[in-house]
């Protein structure tokens, strides 16, 4: 039997700390409860006539919400009472400062993409986003990165508009042929 190379699997079962797991369990229960008692009553319209209760539009969502609540309970109970396996590696959920900054920057880029799309156009937004991400991830292979940032969106644009017949959003500033 060939032993598959698995560098990732050797460091044991990755776990979160018991405190984190408990918080997750409680959080899941809160989400389930919010769905059941806040979202379903307010955002699911039930028609005037429901001949059979199981046919109500809210029937399935309610079952799902209860499932989530129960599972949240099980998760919390397990975090409280079950011992962790001996070879567990506890992962830390905390984010270091540079990591946090990078995540924030990425979030800003993603938000920027969405809001700039209709105004600037998909091609130009993609070019800028590509270039920014290359810079954000350390700026290695910078020259290639900048070339790819220009070429890839253009290639995709021509493929989708000319071959596949999809109208890629052009924006209001510069239109491509």
């Amino acid at each position: 039997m060939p032993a598959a190379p698995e560098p990732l699997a050797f460091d044991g079962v990755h776990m979160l700390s018991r405190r984190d797991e408990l918080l997750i369990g409680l959080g899941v229960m809160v989400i389930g409860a919010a769905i059941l008692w806040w979202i379903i009553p307010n955002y699911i319209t039930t028609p005037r006539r429901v001949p059979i209760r199981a046919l109500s539009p809210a029937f399935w969502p309610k079952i799902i919400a209860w499932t989530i609540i129960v599972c949240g309970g099980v998760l919390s109970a397990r975090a409280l009472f079950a011992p962790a396996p001996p070879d567990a590696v506890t992962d830390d959920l905390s984010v270091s400062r540079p990591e946090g900054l990078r995540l924030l920057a990425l979030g800003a880029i993603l938000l920027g993409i969405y809001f700039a799309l209709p105004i600037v156009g998909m091609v130009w937004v993609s070019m800028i986003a590509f270039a920014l991400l290359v810079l954000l991830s350390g700026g290695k292979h910078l020259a290639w990165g900048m070339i790819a940032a220009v070429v890839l969106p253009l290639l995709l644009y021509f493929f989708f508009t000319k071959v596949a017949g999809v109208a890629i959003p052009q924006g209001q500033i510069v239109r491509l042929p």
Partner: protein
Amino acid sequence: MKTTLIALSMGVAAAALAAPVAAEYPTRPIQMIIPFGPGGATDLSARALSTPLSRIMPQPIVLTNRAGAGGATGSVAVRDAAGDGYTLLLARVGSHTVNPAMNPNLPYTLDEFRFVGIYEINPVACVVNSNSDFHSIDDLINAVNERPGEILYSSSGVGSLPHFGALMVLDSFGITDLDENVIHIPTEGDGQALTAVLQGTSDFYCGSTSPAAPFINGGQMRPLMVTSAERLDGFDAPTVDEIGKPELQALVGWTGLAGPADLTDEATEKWGDWLAEAVEDEDFQRFMTSGGSIVQLMSPEESVEFVNSAYESFRRLVVALDLEID
């Protein structure tokens, strides 16, 4: 809200770019939005039409599927687009007659569109499985009267033509309390609705002839009646006139082109000419008639009148029978 903004900004962009060029109307590709998914009856009809159109028109057409919510998503996108003629909608009976008549919460109304032309008429046929005991529409009606609440019919969804069609037919035969007396089984499309008839999940289906045609030709299903004025090739069933219910002639499917309410006269006029030429194409005719449709081009005025009168008659029935979705 967001789509409005997006569509508005796209429209502004289009206007800004179109303005300096004083050339005639189509100076860039025209987007035709199909409010249903690829492969559906509307999509196939649009693609068949676009083939001759692309030969006639000076600019290419870009077909765009914008499916969702029984055609509402795509319809709203066109309603919110600029009326410069660069964004048009493939309107269909479901999205522009049945749904507006049955669903008071629809995010658009018929007045928000300007019709360019209807080019396809699709009669409705009521079909049953060939193994069924129903050999005529009267058998079906008798069965509903004898066994209320036991006869099932399938449709391609709530507020679709087959949903309304079955109810309209039953009503014309004097069946009351439709909610109680027949049971509606919605499915996710005409294909599934007909499959339900084929496997016995549903007893009958009253919808467009085109999806039913292969099953009729193959002898797996039997038509009980058609709503066309004359008998249809391949459908060995009486017309509504022969049955004595001429009012059911209003129950037909259609496909046409529409723009936003402020569509320019120039675009409307040009499209009228292009459509007139395109529907004469032989391949197009062959494709449409092979599916049981009738190619019939209406002028913008005729189209509006046709759609409005269909809407009015459907709406009256919806109100009278309390069929509104809410």
